[in-house]
């Protein structure tokens, strides 16, 4: 498998305007955290979903100059554009097709789709993806995972449609082993006392759907007078950090078209306390996954601009991935 970055990892640096597209690509090349480059269209390209001929030429020039490879373009269907109704299936299809055309012009072979794209929309868009030779990868992100009910429906639709262009993008957020320490620090700073942090962790590790577990926590905390902002902030623990088993990735192993190597932070030994990297990387190697892993640092949700250098954390993730693969090769 091959390593790369999603520029989304540098969200803090986008916000502070530390980099523009060229200087960020230059930094990725200089630090050796490519060569794969994934982008979120609506984050990195101001005119997205449209791009000018000049932009396309410039993008090609930058990739050549810095020796980088376009891997995956993150699409978004804004289904709630209107206040009176959600987009119709045909409107969603039109939105996605426009983004597929742009992905094709920019040289991306995979487009990330999300659960907002229903089975009917996926089926309608499949011929365009086939014509463009683009794989549609549904992101399997917390609170969903390879075996959750909503994704089982998508898997059934994929089986029915039967196109080689349809696949999945595992995001390690779905299969986490702990709540990131940085998130717990953030909740503590909002006034969540240690006993409630312990209770939160117990509910997170407990049984039931994520919203049930959060509901139990929130009701008990509110009854005990825990500040509401701290309770609200704790929602994220159940929506962004999934508890699906690592083994669940095997279920969709032959449909993996790209991987999001989610990470939040690393300890002194270079390990990710909240994500079992050795188990996941070994599983991907076992199933002979040969595609890209985009490093996706999402610690910006609790560590805002100016706290850490996002690209340093990306480098730590890739060092860990390479360490696991190296240990495997030496067995």
């Amino acid at each position: 498998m091959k390593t790369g970055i999603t520029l989304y990892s540098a969200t803090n640096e986008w916000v502070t305007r530390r980099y523009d597209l060229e200087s960020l690509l230059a930094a990725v090349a200089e630090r050796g955290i490519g060569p794969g480059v994934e982008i979120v269209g609506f984050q990195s390209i101001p005119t997205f979903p449209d791009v000018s001929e000049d932009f396309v030429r410039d993008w090609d020039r930058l990739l050549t100059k810095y020796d980088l490879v376009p891997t995956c373009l993150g699409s978004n269907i804004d289904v709630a554009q209107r206040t009176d109704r959600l987009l119709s299936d045909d409107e969603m299809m039109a939105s996605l097709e426009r983004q597929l055309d742009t992905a094709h012009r920019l040289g991306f072979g995979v487009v990330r789709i999300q659960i907002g794209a229903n089975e009917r929309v996926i089926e309608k868009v499949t011929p365009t993806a086939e014509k463009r030779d683009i794989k549609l990868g549904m992101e399997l992100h917390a609170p969903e995972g390879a075996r959750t009910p909503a994704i089982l429906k998508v898997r059934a639709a994929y089986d029915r449609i039967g196109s080689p262009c349809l696949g999945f993008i595992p995001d390690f957020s779905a299969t986490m082993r702990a709540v990131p320490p940085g998130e717990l620090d953030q909740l503590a700073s909002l006034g969540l006392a240690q006993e409630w942090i312990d209770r939160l962790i117990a509910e997170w590790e407990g049984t039931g759907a994520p919203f049930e577990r959060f509901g139990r926590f929130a009701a008990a905390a509110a009854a005990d007078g825990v500040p509401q902002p701290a309770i609200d902030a704790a929602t994220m623990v159940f929506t962004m950090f999934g508890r699906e088993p690592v083994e669940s990735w095997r279920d969709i192993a032959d449909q993996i078209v790209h991987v999001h190597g989610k990470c939040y932070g690393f300890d002194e030994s270079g390990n990710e306390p909240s994500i079992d990297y050795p188990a996941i990387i070994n599983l991907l190697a076992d199933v002979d996954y040969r595609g890209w892993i985009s490093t996706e640092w999402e610690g910006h949700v609790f560590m805002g601009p100016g706290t850490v250098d996002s690209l340093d954390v990306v480098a730590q993730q890739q060092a860990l991935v390479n360490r696991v693969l190296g240990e495997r090769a030496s067995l």
Partner: protein
Amino acid sequence: MFDTYIIGEGTIRNVESDGAVTGFAFDTRITYYRGLGLSMVEPFEVVLDGVAIPVENLRFTLGDRTWTFAEMAQEFDARWELTETAVLTVLLPGGLTAGEHELQVTEVLRVSYLPFLSRTQTRRRVAIAA
């Protein structure tokens, strides 16, 4: 994490029209990880010294275009990009008076795949530069 950008630090100022102070304004940034079309930006909630400002008295400016929030709900072309600074103007005859005020602003976004509105709030003690 991006709540500190809702009221741009040091950007609060009174605005004039035809020689009269008609309100005050401040720079503001989107609190999401990407840009959104303006129709997905819900009315901001502005509370000045504990008093809510009616939405009709708010104006949103990007570049050289200005909208009311009612107009923004129908704006399907213009987008507010991640790195783009907008200006929120509060129509208030006389503007902000001298001295400190407490300004609380909530940015509300209709983010597509979340089943609820994304609300990010900030509060600042502000004063017009003398």
